[in-house]
């Protein structure tokens, strides 16, 4: 009995340590720039969920406003995820044609288009 308990606790420890390793690696090896992007993406997800739940509670009334808010979240998330993938030099081998400058330019143009729509929808 005790042995099984011990084994299970060790596996838990192992798992924990796996996640811990992953986390430690992330903290250690990821450039601060990407950390900021990641935390910002987490913020976007949170905002999206909040707006969705809020819309669920109060109903469809300012529908276009909800669309603007929610779609701006989804769009931003997608664009930043793209920027993060494309501008990372570690991904150079897979997407060699896209330079970090080019990826930023894409991000900029797409964002401008997205926010034009969002602002026109919001009122």
């Amino acid at each position, binding site marked *: 009995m005790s042995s099984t308990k011990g084994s299970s606790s060790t596996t838990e420890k192992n798992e924990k340590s796996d996640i811990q390793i992953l986390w430690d690696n992330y903290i250690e090896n990821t450039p601060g*720039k990407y950390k900021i992007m990641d935390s*910002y993406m987490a913020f976007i997800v949170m905002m999206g969920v909040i707006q969705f739940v809020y819309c669920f509670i109060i109903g469809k009334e*300012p529908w276009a406003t909800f669309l603007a*808010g929610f779609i*701006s979240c989804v769009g*931003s998330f997608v664009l930043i995820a793209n920027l993060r993938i494309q501008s990372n*030099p570690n991904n150079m081998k897979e997407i060699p044609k896209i330079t970090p400058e080019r990826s930023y330019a894409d991000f900029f143009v797409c964002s401008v288009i997205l926010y034009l729509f969002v602002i026109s929808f*919001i009122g």
Partner: protein
Amino acid sequence: MKTLFLFTLIIQFTSFIFAKSNSLSGNRILVVLDNIEDKSNYSIFFKSLEDRGFDLSYSSASDDKLELIKFEESLYDHLVLLAPETNYYENDVGPKQIIEFIDKGGNVLLAANENTGSTTQDLLYEFGSVVDEAKFNVIDNFVHNSTTSSVLALDKLEIPISSDELEAPILYSGTAIKFKGKNPYSKPLLVAGPAAYSWDNSAVNKDPLVTGSNIVLVNTLQAVNNARIIITGSTKMFTDEFIESPVKINDKTYEKSGNLDFITNISKWTFQEKKVLKVISSKHHKVGETERPEYYTIKNNMHYEIELSEYNDGIWQPFNATDIQLELIMLDPYIRTTLKQQPITNPTSSTFSIDLIIPDHCGVFTFKVDYRRYGLSWILEKDVIAIHPLHYNEFPRFLGEGLPYYFGAFSMLGGFIIISILALYHEDDTKKNTDTVTSSKKEKEVAATEKKKN
């Protein structure tokens, strides 16, 4: 005194010349008979028509002067067809031309009998009905006049286009007409009793064509253009003999049959002398205004009003109803509502109106009053008008409820600026990270220089 007498004489004379019937569609009637001599058989009926101001022309079906439509114009306003036995009418007056006559607004009173010829058969076929075989007539062994079982005596009407209460039973002797029931514009007015059947003198050895109340004795049809048609299987019903005949049914006896009363009523209906409806005006506008707007905006309060008048025996009267509906249609009806009759202020018409809210849906709408009640002329009043959405300055643009959404959207916009600055100007201080980055940069540079060298 003498001058006064002369004066009244002149007035009487002129009124005789310009005698006009109460019919709204005109007073020229063409009577088509099998033989011109038959005219005397129907003298009471024709006399009653003339007394009502109609101008009757008589023609035999085989007369080569028989004409109904000339140069695309109807020569008559109404047609009385009492010539069922003639197979072919002169001058191509046949079903096709009679249908054309009806399309031009002509009213038709059509009678078949036991020896119906092909023209009348084809014409009946056009109205969705079949006539029974030759020599067959309607027999009822229970409800009949004195002892003749082939002369039916009826006292119940199916729909009230005629006088509602008959003073005496109607005598009917003729053939059975079967209606296929596929024409939604036709409706039986007089049907045989439950024990009636259609057969000739021989013994019944198979199922008759029609029995009981499926035997339509008098049928009404009102075409889409409000032309009215009466179809009956008995020419005898219109004869002097039947009009004057006493009726003895079971124990009751009547001095005179109700035929003249009935014929008068159905001919008044057919020749547009009664139960004619007319739209005098219809209008709609926003509540508080009087003019029809160029367009409505969603959720406007509007007022709809229609003025109707009913014609009966030469008088326009207010029309009373509780079931007139207004529909706001864009493919489907968005609103279907019953109009309320307003207190009558005009002696000749009545007003129906309603206040309602325009649907919350923009598009091109049709405001339609489509009133179809049997016996009355059809009414169709339409108006097409656009319903616009709210203009940009007609509703609040920013609501308190939308605050989380505004915050969401603008925080994304702020995030965009932060990420832009980050992507453009951020340099990492951490050694490891810079190492990896710079090492890869160095590799690149090395590769580039090598390429150049090569």
